[in-house]
């Protein structure tokens, strides 16, 4: 670990076994689909075979008549929705579009769009019933590709949609139907003047495929609408409160009547924030009076949830001979899928963020297409725009005959400089990360062998703050119960318990964390946005401060001494010496044992809304081999360097980085949505979509650079998202180095590489 100004910690920086570990290695941990309730019904969803069609008629009578079928629902069973704005925690949603995505309204807008749902006594019966639902479609032409969707001649998804122009200096939108939902612009300085100063100007165009989050656990939901009107939803989600609020909005039920019980979650990566099945299961339960469990077949997960935007991005960079970047102009077009709301905003904000620039102009477009409505995916929006910038930057370095890291260091973002939006940067580790890349033995080593190349790239992600609540109770045996609203997606219980333990001078094992339902803890935003260890850590710290203060008060009362003479230190309370000269000292465990007899046990709660999260920077180095016969790219060595602030649980920080890197490798090399000319999605299975498997990748070396975040008591920065940003450009740059062929599309599949290598006919 590379570390600066790090205090001595006792718990932070160790890697204990997680509190929920034994349940997860013995199969006892209860994920959403594992739930069993008395009288349980099974739900299944009928989906559209067309990418774009008007629903002329739905007849569910034959399905409803099948023995064992208890209810059938369609879009019309939901209350009507007006246009609005729902905060999902990582992204927003318009309830009018959200309800139509959950069950299609007058049109289906993508292959796999949900049309109707059935509840039956047995899953097989429910599936049989789907085949009995008659739907008459009027098929319309579909548009899949983002640039085609922007053409005036393109099929229109939403006739009422007009472009929302939030771009100073851009022409106002015409009052005619369009697929372009948003045109936004970020501008700083004068790019024309910047390009005029440049010695080298390079402009390139890039496209990226849609990528799916690829969590191994399919979406699931179980709901019970009791006959007193109280609704309970059990689901695997990144945000129980977000699910509650979405279900409440779609069903027009007050949030106080909906309890969401977060089950263990089998991966999310941003994809388990939007609701899909929860409101449908609730409707089916209302109709039947029985609990209804649903989970998605894998093909539905791929066709109808997630994915990222496919994108088209043009980047123009001007630089002087000494490497100073004089201007960057970017044009980013992101496919939102069936309804507006891609992550192009974050793509715009992040595109040039690793660098301090005087002249930047970035236009972003949010465009609807006949593909699944996109959802957040790990640093949503950032990988595509930063890929385009980092790949173009490599060509600038080549034109200037400059070391690739020297060019980046020359322009590195620094504390006090402003980003493209003109906001000043807080203390960040961009320079430290770039220097660590440049001096790393991987970067300085010789490349040996034929068709082997090396690439580097930087990455940036904001990280989130947002609202988190927790409560804690000191038990009489000296342990502390810690109640969390943040679902544990990969070590949350451990990382938050460790921060409370650190503050109280206890061990992680003394803290008993549990994740609870929405009736049992204060509002907590999603586990996402790399915010959980940061915001949850702040709350754990606040709880610790409160507990320490109360223990000091109690000790003063027990000892009959003034409060200001009692201190909390080294995991216990110390007071002034007694009259006989003996030291007054009670360990945490000792005073915990005296609480009941001296005024009662201590219970505290806290909420944090701090937004001092601190940004994350990453720099990756990769060596690849390209097989000229097959076009296959093999990753030979991979080093991921990242400013992690303070690593609370280093093994889990490494795991986040390694996992993010391998997802990025999938984007770079194999993962892709294939559509036919009518817009049918053709590869809806994990191995046809092709997420990386164990023998696709080597060990991923990590270097944790620790530049503590001054906005957090333990210096925490979010770590989870930024590692997915650099792999696409780093591998693309490495392939170019290996075989001298520059690619402008990800994934760089064997077929695309062979296309470049084989002689043209």
């Amino acid at each position, binding site marked *: 670990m590379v570390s600066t100004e790090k205090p001595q910690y006792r718990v932070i920086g160790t890697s204990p*076994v997680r509190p929920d570990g034994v349940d997860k290695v013995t199969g006892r941990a209860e994920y959403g689909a594992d739930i069993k309730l008395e009288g349980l019904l099974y739900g299944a969803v009928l989906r559209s075979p067309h990418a774009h069609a008007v629903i002329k008629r739905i007849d569910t009578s034959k399905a409803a008549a099948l023995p064992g079928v208890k209810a059938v629902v369609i879009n019309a069973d939901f209350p009507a929705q007006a246009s609005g704005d729902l905060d999902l925690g990582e992204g927003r949603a318009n309830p009018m579009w959200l309800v139509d995505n959950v069950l299609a309204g007058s049109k289906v807008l993508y292959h796999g769009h949900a049309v109707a749902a059935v509840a039956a006594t047995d899953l097989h019966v429910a599936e049989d019933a789907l085949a009995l639902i008659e739907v008459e479609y009027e098929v319309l032409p579909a548009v899949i590709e983002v640039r085609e969707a922007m053409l005036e001649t393109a099929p229109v998804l939403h006739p009422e949609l007009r472009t929302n122009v939030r771009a100073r200096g851009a022409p106002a939108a015409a009052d005619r139907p369009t697929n372009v939902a948003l045109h936004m612009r970020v501008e700083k300085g004068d790019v024309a003047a910047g390009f005029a100063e440049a010695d080298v100007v390079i402009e390139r165009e890039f496209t990226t495929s849609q990528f799916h989050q690829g969590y191994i656990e399919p979406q699931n939901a179980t709901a019970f609408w009791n006959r007193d009107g109280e609704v309970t939803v059990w689901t695997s989600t990144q945000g129980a409160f977000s699910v509650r609020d979405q279900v409440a909005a779609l069903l027009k039920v007050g949030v106080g009547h909906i309890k969401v019980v977060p089950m263990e979650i089998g991966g999310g990566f941003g994809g388990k924030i939007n609701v899909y099945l929860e409101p449908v299961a609730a409707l089916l339960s209302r109709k039947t009076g029985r609990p209804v469990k649903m989970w998605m077949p894998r093909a539905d997960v791929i066709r109808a949830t997630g994915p990222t935007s496919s994108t088209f991005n043009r980047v123009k960079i001007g630089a002087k001979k000494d490497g100073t970047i004089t201007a960057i102009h970017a044009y980013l077009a992101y496919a939102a899928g069936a309804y507006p709301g891609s992550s192009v905003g974050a793509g715009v904000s992040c595109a040039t963020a690793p660098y301090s620039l005087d002249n930047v102009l970035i236009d972003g477009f949010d465009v609807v297409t006949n593909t699944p409505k996109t959802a957040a995916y790990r640093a949503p929006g950032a990988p595509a725009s930063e890929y385009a910038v980092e790949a173009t930057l490599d060509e600038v370095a080549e034109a200037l005959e400059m070391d690739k890291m020297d060019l980046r260091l020359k322009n590195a973002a620094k504390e006090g400089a402003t980003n493209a939006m003109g906001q000043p940067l807080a203390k960040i580790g961009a320079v430290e990360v770039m220097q660590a890349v440049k001096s790393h033995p991987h970067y300085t080593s010789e490349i040996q062998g034929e068709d082997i190349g090396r690439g580097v790239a930087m990455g940036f992600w904001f990280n989130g703050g947002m609202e988190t609540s927790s409560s804690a109770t000191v038990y009489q045996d000296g342990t502390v119960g810690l109640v969390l609203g943040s679902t544990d997606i990969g070590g949350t219980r451990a990382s938050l318990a460790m921060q409370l333990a650190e503050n109280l001078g206890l061990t992680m094992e003394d803290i008993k964390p549990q994740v609870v339902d929405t009736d049992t803890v204060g509002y907590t935003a999603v586990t996402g946005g790399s915010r959980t260890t940061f915001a949850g850590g702040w709350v754990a710290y606040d709880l610790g401060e409160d507990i320490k203060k109360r223990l000091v008060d109690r000790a003063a009362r027990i000892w009959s001494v003034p409060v200001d003479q009692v201190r909390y230190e080294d995991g216990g309370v110390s007071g002034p010496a007694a009259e006989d000269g003996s030291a007054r000292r009670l360990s945490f465990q000792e005073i915990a044992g005296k609480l009941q007899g001296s005024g009662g046990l201590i219970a505290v709660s806290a909420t944090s809304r701090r937004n001092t999260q601190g940004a994350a920077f990453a720099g990756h180095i990769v060596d690849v081999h390209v097989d000229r016969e097959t076009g296959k790219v093999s990753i030979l060595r991979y080093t991921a360097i990242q400013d992690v602030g303070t690593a609370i649980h280093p093994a889990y920080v490494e795991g986040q980085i390694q996992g993010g890197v391998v997802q990025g490798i999938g984007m770079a090399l194999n993962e892709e949505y294939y559509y036919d000319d009518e817009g049918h999605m053709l590869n809806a*299975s994990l191995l046809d979509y092709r997420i990386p*498997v164990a023998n696709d990748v080597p060990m991923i070396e990590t270097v944790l650079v620790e530049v503590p975040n001054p906005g957090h008591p333990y210096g925490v920065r979010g770590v989870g998202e930024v590692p997915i940003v650099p792999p696409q450009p780093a591998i693309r740059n490495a392939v170019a180095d290996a075989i001298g062929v520059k690619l402008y599309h990800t994934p760089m599949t064997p077929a695309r590489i062979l296309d470049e290598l084989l002689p043209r006919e």
Partner: protein
Amino acid sequence: MTTTEDGILIRTTINGDPTTFLASQRDSLLEALRERLNMTGSKEGCNNGNCGACSVLLDGRLVNSCLVLAAEVEGARVDTIEGMAEGEQLHPLQRAFLEEAALQCGICTPGFLVASRALLAENPRPTEEEARFWLAGNLCRCTGYDKIIRAVLKAAGEMDGKR
């Protein structure tokens, strides 16, 4: 195997326990385990043999339980994640997965543990490459496989050392 009006009666041995259960002809072994026997440690990730989250041993052979019909286990021996720990003791692989932080969300973990157990039964000291090829049928989206492979190699060393 007896066919009744309600389905078929299947007699098998699960984790050493003689077990009789009623299943539909269409039930996969995974469905029978999860929905009929309430043994939910085996997970459904794909239901088509891609992901390995439902891995079990059938007469000692590693299979995806989603690709086996429940009716096929008549008279067979099935070993699932629920039978991996013995008494108070975790299996060395389970311990190694915890110590090496080889799980994040944990949904793929039961399948990886069952598949790794089968690997070590066949090849007690696999190389990294052998472990990666054997486990290529188990998908993990969280870890990037690094810590899983380390955990398997560590457990192999411990178990082989005790032989």
